[in-house]
C-alpha cells in the first residue's frame, strides 16, 4: 500500500519535536507492512482518548473512533467483541490510560481481550498545560503541584503483568525501527497487548537527553518467562535513576475473552415465532 494513502487532510497541530510524531510514523509503517503481509486494511480500527495523543486518529486515514478521556479501552473492547475479525488498536495518554481509565485497563488485561493498547506516556499532561500524571516522578513540579508531587509514580507494566496482560513492551520516541517492530508484534499478538511508549513532551517535560542516556534494548531476555519479565519490569520503577529497558518484556499464549465467549456471527432466528412459543402456557 502507498504510505501516503494513510495521510488525511487534517492539519497536524502537535508541537515541533513532539514525541507523538515518532508514534505516528511508526504506526503508519507498521500498518503499511501489516497490510502488505495480508491484514485487510478495512479491518483496522483505531481508537483514541482525549489529549495530544488522541489527534493521531485525525492524522491516519483508517477507520477510527475518537473517544473520550480515559475510555479508550471499553470502546475498543466493544468494537472487538462486536466483530472479532477486526484489528482494534487503542491509543491513550498516560493520564488517559493510567489515571482516569485505569479500571478499564486492568479489566481488559484480566479478560485478555485481543486488542492492542499503545500508551503515549510522556509523564505529564500536555494539552491541559503541564500537570503531573500517574507516572511523573516523586517531587514533579507541575502547574497543579508547584511545590512538587507528594506521591510515587506507578509502574504500569508491573500492574499490567499482575492483571493478566499477555504482551508487554516498552519503546521510546527515539528509535523508530524498534517502535515499529514492537507495534507490529503487539498487533499480531493474540490477546491483550500493551506498549508503553516513553514519548517526550518537548514543551512541558523534555526528557529526550535523559532517556537517551538511560535506555538500552533488552538482550538475551526470555519474554516467555514470567519471573524474568517481572524482574526486568521492576528494574526501573518510573522514579529511580536506573537503566531503562526497551523491547518486549513478556509474551504469553492464552485463550482470549472472545474465544471463551465463542462470539460468532449472528444466526438467523425467527424471533417472532420464538417469542410466541415462549408465551405459550
Amino acid at each position, binding site marked *: 500500500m502507498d504510505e501516503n494513502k494513510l495521510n488525511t487532510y487534517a492539519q497536524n497541530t502537535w508541537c515541533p519535536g513532539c514525541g507523538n510524531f515518532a508514534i505516528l510514523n511508526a504506526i503508519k509503517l507498521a500498518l503499511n507492512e501489516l497490510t502488505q503481509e495480508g491484514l485487510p486494511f478495512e479491518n483496522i480500527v483505531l481508537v483514541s482518548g*482525549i489529549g495530544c495523543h488522541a489527534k493521531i486518529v485525525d492524522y491516519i486515514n483508517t477507520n477510527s473512533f*475518537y473517544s*473520550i478521556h480515559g475510555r479508550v479501552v471499553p470502546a475498543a473492547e*466493544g468494537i472487538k*467483541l462486536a466483530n472479532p475479525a*477486526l484489528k482494534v488498536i487503542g491509543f491513550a495518554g498516560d493520564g488517559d490510560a493510567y489515571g482516569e481509565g485505569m*479500571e478499564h485497563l486492568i*479489566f481488559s488485561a484480566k479478560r485478555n481481550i485481543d486488542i492492542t493498547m499503545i500508551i503515549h506516556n510522556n509523564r505529564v499532561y500536555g494539552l491541559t498545560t503541564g500537570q503531573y500524571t500517574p507516572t511523573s516522578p516523586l517531587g514533579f513540579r507541575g502547574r497543579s503541584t508547584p511545590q512538587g508531587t507528594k506521591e510515587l509514580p506507578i509502574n504500569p507494566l508491573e500492574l499490567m503483568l499482575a492483571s493478566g496482560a499477555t504482551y508487554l513492551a516498552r519503546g521510546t520516541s527515539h528509535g523508530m525501527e524498534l517502535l515499529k517492530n514492537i507495534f507490529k508484534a503487539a498487533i499480531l499478538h493474540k490477546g491483550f497487548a500493551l506498549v508503553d511508549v516513553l514519548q517526550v513532551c518537548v514543551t512541558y517535560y523534555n526528557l529526550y537527553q535523559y532517556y537517551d542516556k538511560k535506555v538500552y534494548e533488552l538482550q538475551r531476555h526470555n519474554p516467555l518467562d514470567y519471573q524474568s519479565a517481572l524482574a526486568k519490569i521492576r528494574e526501573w520503577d518510573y522514579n529511580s535513576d536506573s537503566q531503562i529497558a526497551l523491547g518486549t518484556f513478556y509474551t504469553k499464549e492464552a485463550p482470549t475473552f472472545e474465544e471463551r465467549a465463542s462470539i460468532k456471527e449472528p444466526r438467523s432466528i425467527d424471533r417472532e415465532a*420464538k417469542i410466541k412459543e415462549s408465551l405459550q*402456557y
Partner: protein
Amino acid sequence: MTGFSILIGGKAGFGIDKSGFIIGRILNQLGYRVYIYRDYPSLIRGGHTFSIIRASSERIAVHEDKVDYILALNQDCINLHKKRIKPSSIIIYDSDIVKLEDGPEGVRQSGVSIAAIIKEENASEIMRNTCVIGAFCKASGIKQDILETVLKKEIPREVDLNLKVAFRGFDAVKELGKIEPLSQNPLPLLSGSQAMGLGLIKGGLNTYIAYPMTPSSPLLHFLAEKAQDYNLEVIHPESEISVMLMALGFAYAGKKVAVGTSGGGFCLMTEGLSLAGMSETPIVIMLGQRPGPSTGLPTYTSQTELHFALNAGQGEFSRFVVAPGDAEEAYYWSGVALNMSWKYQLPSFILADKTLAEGIYNFDLAAAGEIKEGNTVLWDRTTPYKRYANSENGVSPLAFVPDKEAIIKLNSYEHDEYGITTEEPQTTKFMQEKRLRKEEYLAKELEAIKTVNVYGEKNSSLVLLCWGSNKGVCIEAAMKLKAKVIQPLVLWPFPLKQFEEALSGVKKLVCVENNATGQLARLIKNYGFSVDKKILKYDGRPFSLDELDEALKGI
C-alpha cells in the same frame, strides 16, 4: 368488576416471589386477570418479603391495600399486615411458627402444621411455600387438578415431592371460601422487565450490556438467560462507565445494543451518553427508577429521574424518551425505542421504575402492537462515504466496519462531515444544527403514532395526569370518579399537539406522581400548562388503589 387479593409473605430468600407467581398462574387458569406487586427489603436472607396477588375479571395494573387471603409463613406476615385484614378475610398460617390471636370479628383462620409436614416428608424449607399454596387452594375451593397442573409446569426440580407436600397442605384445611372460575382464557404472565426484553428482542437487539443494579437487574438476568435462544450477546463489565462505552463500540460496528441501569449507575453513564449524542451513535438506555438521592431505597420505587433523563449529558443533543405504563407498553415501546435510536442515530430512553420492572402483569401480545424492524438509513455507495454527511433531516447514512469501500470515522470532538476534528465556527454551527434537526424530524414522525393515551370518561372536565407505572392505578381510580386519565407515553420530544388535544375541555388537572416535586407537572409548565393539584407519593412504595381513592376524595 369482581376480584380479590392474596398476600403471601415470609422471610427473604425463601421463595416468596416464585410462590406469588404460582398463585398468579393458578388464578389465571381460573380465568382471572392478575397483577402482582412484590415488596422486598435490600437483604439476601431474613427480613420480611411479600407479594400481593390481585385477581380481577378485568385487566388491572395496581394492587389494593386490603386483602382477602393472607398466607403467612412467618410472624411478621401477621404483625406487619394487620391493617390489610377485612372481616371477610381468610388467614392460612404455619401454626408451627406463627402465633395467631383472634382476628377481627368474622375473620376465618386456619393453621397448618407446615414445619411438621416438611419434616415428615423430608422436604426442604423452600417447600413450605408449596404446602401453603396447597392449603390456599383447598381453603378457596380451587380444584386439586388445577394446583397439580400449575405446579408441574412451574416447579423445575423435585416435582413429585413438591406435589406431595402441596397435597398435604391441601388436605390439612377445610374449604372456607369459594373462588368462582370465570369463562376467560388465561393470558401469559410477564414482569415489565421480561416484556421490555422481548420488545428489544423483537426490535432486533443484538447485544445487551449492564452492570447489576436494582431494579434494572431483572432485565439483565432475563436477557442473559435467553441469550442462547435469541442469539444475543449479554455482557456484564466492570462498571457502568464501561457499559456505556462498550455499547457505543458495539453500535459503531453495527450491532443493535441496549444498556440498563438505575439512577446511580446512570450518573456514571452520562459522559458516554453525551458521546453518543455527539458521535450520533444509536443506543438504548433502560433507566429503572428507584428512590434517591444517592443509594436511597434500593429495592423500592419512584419516578424521580424524568428530568435527569431529559437533561443528562453535557451539551445539547437529540434524544428520545418513552415511559411505558404496563407490560404491553413496555414491550411495544422498547421495540420502538430501539428502532428510533437506529433511524435517527440518537440515544433512546426506556424510563421504567421498580413497579414496572418487577411488577407482574398479564400480557396480550396481540394487543401490544406490532414492532417493525429495519428503518436504519444505510449508505447507498453512490458517493464516497462520509460518516456525518449532511441531509435534510440531519440523518447521515450508516456504514459499518469492516467495509472495503468506506473509511468510517466517529468523533467525540466537533467534526466535519468526514469525521475529522474541527474548531471552525461555521462547521461547528452547521453540525450542531444537523444533530438537533434529527429531533425535529423524530417529533414529526411521532405525530402519526399515538403518544398520549386517554382513558376513562373522555368528556370529563376532571383529569388525572400520570406517566409510567401510575397508569393502572389512575385508570381504576378515575373509573369511580367518572374522570379522564391522560398518560403521555413519549416524554421527549414532548408530544405537544396530542397533549393539547387530550387536554381539551379540562377544568381540573390533577397530576399523580411517585416523586416529591411533580416532575411531569414541571415539564408541562414549560408549555404553559399548570396543574391544579399534585398528588405525590415519595415513600418508596407505589400507590395502592385504596390510597389514591382516598387522596382523591373531595376533589
